[in-house]
């Protein structure tokens, strides 16, 4: 039975191909047709480069060489430019119906701006703008609880200085979200040297392991991310036995 907080089901997929990840996201998106079915898919992918809905910067001639590196290449219907997913990177796909978080948004915005004029500048309820901002805060909190001070910037994503520690790119249709975020735990960052990550020149990438100078696995980072998600989305997380 659901209280006032939305219920989000955590689904641990393990190591799955990007294609399988897309297929499973669609399964969970489709479940929303018959009522609230918020889910949080967690996985890792074998090496893969993905692009978003902006095709023009990435003709086949630019993507084909990446396949020679031993990675797959996929176009996705998400926002954001090119990025890399691979082992050691915690990939999280929240499949939420944003209209079910309307009250959460109002509570968050009210608490943050108690009575001040900034209330009117808050993102509208159930908006992608609000959703992406909450995802960023989730990752910043998760990094913080692991001892890494991360920040946001005008470029969507989460940063440690000029280096991106977590990429984001989402899709939203009929208020249902898919795609999500990718947090570098102990990813081999050399894969990123073959692209301009997210199309942003002059910036680098980093990982939790690099920042903490010790090995931080996806397994270690996951509970921190889940706790932060529950906090910032004011939701109950449930796991299948």
């Amino acid at each position, binding site marked *: 039975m659901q209280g006032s907080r939305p219920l989000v089901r955590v689904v641990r997929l393990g190591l799955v191909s990007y294609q399988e990840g897309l297929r499973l996201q669609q399964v969970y998106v489709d479940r929303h047709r018959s009522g609230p079915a918020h889910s949080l898919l967690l996985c890792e992918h074998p090496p893969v480069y993905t692009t978003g809905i902006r095709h023009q910067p990435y003709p086949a001639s630019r993507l084909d060489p990446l396949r020679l590196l031993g990675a797959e290449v996929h176009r996705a219907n*998400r926002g954001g430019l090119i990025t890399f997913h691979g082992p050691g990177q915690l990939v999280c796909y929240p499949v939420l119906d944003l209209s079910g978080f309307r009250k959460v948004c109002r509570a968050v915005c009210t608490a943050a701006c108690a009575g001040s004029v900034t209330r009117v500048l808050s993102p509208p309820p159930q908006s*992608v703008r609000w959703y992406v901002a909450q995802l960023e805060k989730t990752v910043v909190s998760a990094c913080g609880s692991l001892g890494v001070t991360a920040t946001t910037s005008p470029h969507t994503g989460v940063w440690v200085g000029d280096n991106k520690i977590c990429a984001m790119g989402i899709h939203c249709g009929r208020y249902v979200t898919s795609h999500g975020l990718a947090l570098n735990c102990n990813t081999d960052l050399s894969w990123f040297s073959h692209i301009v990550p997210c199309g942003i020149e002059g910036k680098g990438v980093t990982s939790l392991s690099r920042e903490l100078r010790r090995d931080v696995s996806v397994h270690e980072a996951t509970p921190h991310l889940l706790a932060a998600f529950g906090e910032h989305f004011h939701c109950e997380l449930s796991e299948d036995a």
Partner: protein
Amino acid sequence: MAAYALLRSMSSSFSSVLPLLSRSGSLSPAPLAVKTLFRRTLASSSRFSAALKFTDKHEWVRVEDDGIGTVGISNFAQEALGDVVYCGLPEVGTQLAQQDEFGALESVKAASELYSPLTGEVVEVNSLLADKPGLVNKSCYKDGWLMKMTIAKPAELDSLMDEAAYERYIRSIED
């Protein structure tokens, strides 16, 4: 539809983007308090007005004098998206059924789907948006229009919300 001016008192979110247009001298003045004037279609055979109709997914459609529908997103939608950096729009000639996905707008690394308000064929897309996607934010009812389409089933317009109903709808979302 009456061939008189459709004079409406509009909320500030509309009046800031819609142009003030003068009335034709051939019509008797209607004693209504107005903030904004809409252009009228004087063709008495036309069933359509130039008023906006809205979907529950925040697209609008305006029927032009030539019976073509101009489609865009509402002020509420452009605020919800944030700064639009890319408009993924359909090819001219694409056939759309009402509620078909016809493209996506990207903002804050989010690709948000667009849904066709009507059944018809895409006859034009706004080429300005390729270089200036921000027009969708700055001028969502005018220069930031997304596409134009034929109206294969005019009765579908009746299933859409008029401005007053849409304003009530967004107030119910915000409350």
